[in-house]
């Protein structure tokens, strides 16, 4: 089925089954591999993207449901890693293996968009859906506070 998706400001015509998870359309059809597969059941957050500005697990949204909506992936968060969350992630060297970090950054950016100066517990609540097996949670929390100070 031919579908039209708007990703990072560009329109992509894709030919996929309408029930195909957005995750796989982004990765395999469009070629944006920054959004990661971790579990396929909306438990780990590695595939977090923004849909109309809200954080969403791309493994849990089918392609048909994403038509007509504004999708932003890690590749579209900023043109040059200049989003305050990305800058804070670099300053505090948050990533270790890095695999979950696209999702962490997208979740953090969405949090700061609605809550510019979050408390620790607001951060915990917003980020609880994003797993990190390397255990960078402490650095993530610090980096979100740092990004908030920069005015994310």
């Amino acid at each position, binding site marked *: 089925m031919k579908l039209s998706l708007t990703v990072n400001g560009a329109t992509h015509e894709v030919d*996929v089954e309408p029930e*195909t998870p957005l995750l*796989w359309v982004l*990765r*395999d*059809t469009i*070629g*944006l*591999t*920054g*959004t*990661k*597969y*971790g*579990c*396929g*059941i909306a*438990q*780990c957050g*590695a595939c977090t993207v923004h849909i109309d500005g809200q954080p969403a697990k791309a493994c849990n949204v089918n392609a048909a449901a994403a038509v007509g909506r504004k999708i932003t*992936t*890690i*590749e579209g*968060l*900023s*043109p*040059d*890693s*200049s989003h305050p969350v*990305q*800058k804070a*992630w*670099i*300053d505090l*060297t*948050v*990533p*270790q*293996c*890095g*695999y*979950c970090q*696209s999702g962490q950054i997208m979740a953090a950016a969405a949090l700061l968009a609605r809550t510019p100066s979050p408390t620790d517990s607001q*951060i*915990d*609540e917003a*980020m*609880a*859906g*994003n*797993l*990190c*097996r*390397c*255990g*960078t*949670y*402490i*650095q993530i*929390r610090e980096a979100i506070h740092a990004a908030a100070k920069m005015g994310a």
Partner: protein
Amino acid sequence: MTTTLSRRFFLTTAVVAGGGLLLGFNIPTEAEAALAPVQGEGWKPPVGGVEINAWLTIDPQGVVTIRIPHTEMGQGGMTSVAQLVAEELNVPWRNVRAVFADANRNVTRGNEYQDMSTGGSNLVRNRHPHIMQAGASARERLREAAAKRWGVSRADVKAEQGMLSAGGKSGSYGEFASDAAAIKLAEEPKIKKYGDWWLLGKDVPRMDVAVKVNGSAVYPIDVRVPGMAYAAVRACPVPGGKVKSFDAAAIKDRPGVIAVIELKQTKDKLANTDMRSAVAVVADSFYRAKVALDLLPIEWDFGPGAQNSYAKMDSAARALMGQEGKHAEEVRGDPRPILAAGGKTVTGDYSRPYETHVPMSPPAAVADVKPDRIDVWSFTQNVQATLLLAAEQAGRNPKDVFVHGTFQGGAFGNGNAVDITRQAVELSKQVGRPVKVIWSREEDTAQARSRPPIWARFEAVLGDDGLPKAMISRAVAESMQPAYADRGLANMPYTIPHYRYERHVVPTNIPVGPNRAPGNNNNGFTIEQFADELALAGGWDPLEWRLKMTEGNERWQRVLLKLKEVSGFTTKLPKGTGMGIAVIESHGATVGACATVEVSRRGALSIEKILIVSNTGYVINPRAATEQVKGCVAWELSHALYGGLDVRDGRVQNTNFDSYKIMRMPDMPTVESVFAMSQDNWWGGFGETAGPPTPPAVANAIFFATGKRIRSTPILKHDLKWA
């Protein structure tokens, strides 16, 4: 730190890391380019550098590109190798770049990088001599080149911060790189010792951060090559079982399906790198392959393994714990007659279940088997071993196989031996095009080499001074790799006059493998809680007891004294709060933990803080080491609090994050990392060593808070309420 980046480009020619070999692929970022460190504007991919030796090139501007033979899986190994070379070469850190080294070169040119494996926390502690040697050798050849050009002796040429100078003359390394490449030294220089370092011991930011905040870092699962097909695979869910039959006709008309292929088990008795009996669906997208595989009717011959369960292993192990063990080593004296004679005895039983790695990236591999060469990108902790595996599977000469370095989305020991490389090679060979295999998370959890369980019983008799005079440690191990059970028990550090270690084995069909501090991760929990039981039974403070029992052991004393100095450890807190300590030696490191917990009357556990004191002898990058300490704490707390594979009917039942729980951000306690370095010419590792003392420190703290001794994990399955 500079944070300006300009790094969103796609290479049109992927460069085989280090070897300069060209492939005609379009790959969105690749190792050679993907590693721009955080070094500000003006960075461009290093091209045209002169190779000084296998480890490094220097370009005309003096930019040094260091080839990294080891895997970067989150532990920071890439930065460590570069830092070790840069120390000796003496170049400003801003001029240092990194690329993954070429395994094909190592195979065909006589192991220039020696061992390319990555594990056992070996990289810095055991490989720093030859890595530093590569930098020192290059530096001396640059000095010699300048000496010749200037007509002075090498001893008169200074090599500092990328500049050579003698008398009034000076020039950059870049100006002398070509000359240096041609120089052979009569004698190789010695490497620097602690005290002469200018870069080692300093905080250095990871080199791979920039590409890990914008989605451009490439992991095996991200590799795309033209004409590539995708495969979903299912091995027999009961390890050791085999495919009986499957009905390919049922799915052959599904959209995008290219082939349904049986993967034959390579040997009767499986080693970790052997291919298991499996079925693969190859399709034009992974999602189509996965859906078709889910719909494929498969009949399995589960074999005798289907009778296995953790419950059966547990009851067999508990029966064995009452019997003298067959395997005994590290015997000191003979505790048996002393225990038989009785007295003030202390006994304790402990157990831990199976766990698994679940690296955030499920395993993936791409193979492109062509008539004249094979290209592979795979989940691995050793690109050279992967190369040899691919060659064997395809029946080709290793010199025609190229394994390309990528980042790894976590590995934690499970990247040492994975048959996914064989699967990708076999499928590419059979369908005649490049194939990407991805294991679903469920397949990963079902097929990964699990972390083994442990059961342990300790029995000791105390003397009049309240200290143990005789003790037996009796472990029950699973049958696949039982020697993991010995770690921490066979070499238990406490100086008990009569000590004996025994081991039993219970049979299983579940394959196991290394998992971040293997063996020690289990036995920290067992031996370090029993140490508290011994201390308290004899009327000793747990910290003073450990100091007494390790008298003369400088590395332990240093950690314990630092714990005493900085932790505020006390057994005198009001009920409902507790502090616990534990110390474990593994991978050359002695690491202590102090946990502070609160437990509500209704049994709700809150871990307030974990303090870690590490003695690894030396630390080359305190910042990176601290990051590893925090990660190790999270790793072990996941298993200690939530873990446990549910093995029933010979298979893992809880195969995704909804049923196999790991730590989430709200669970993460404060972690403080302190160093207490012996600097005694002995090096330990940081990648896994802060984990093992964490669970017993928490469990000991829970005991002081509640009076309840935690004898098994997951801790949160225990009723912790108190009155």
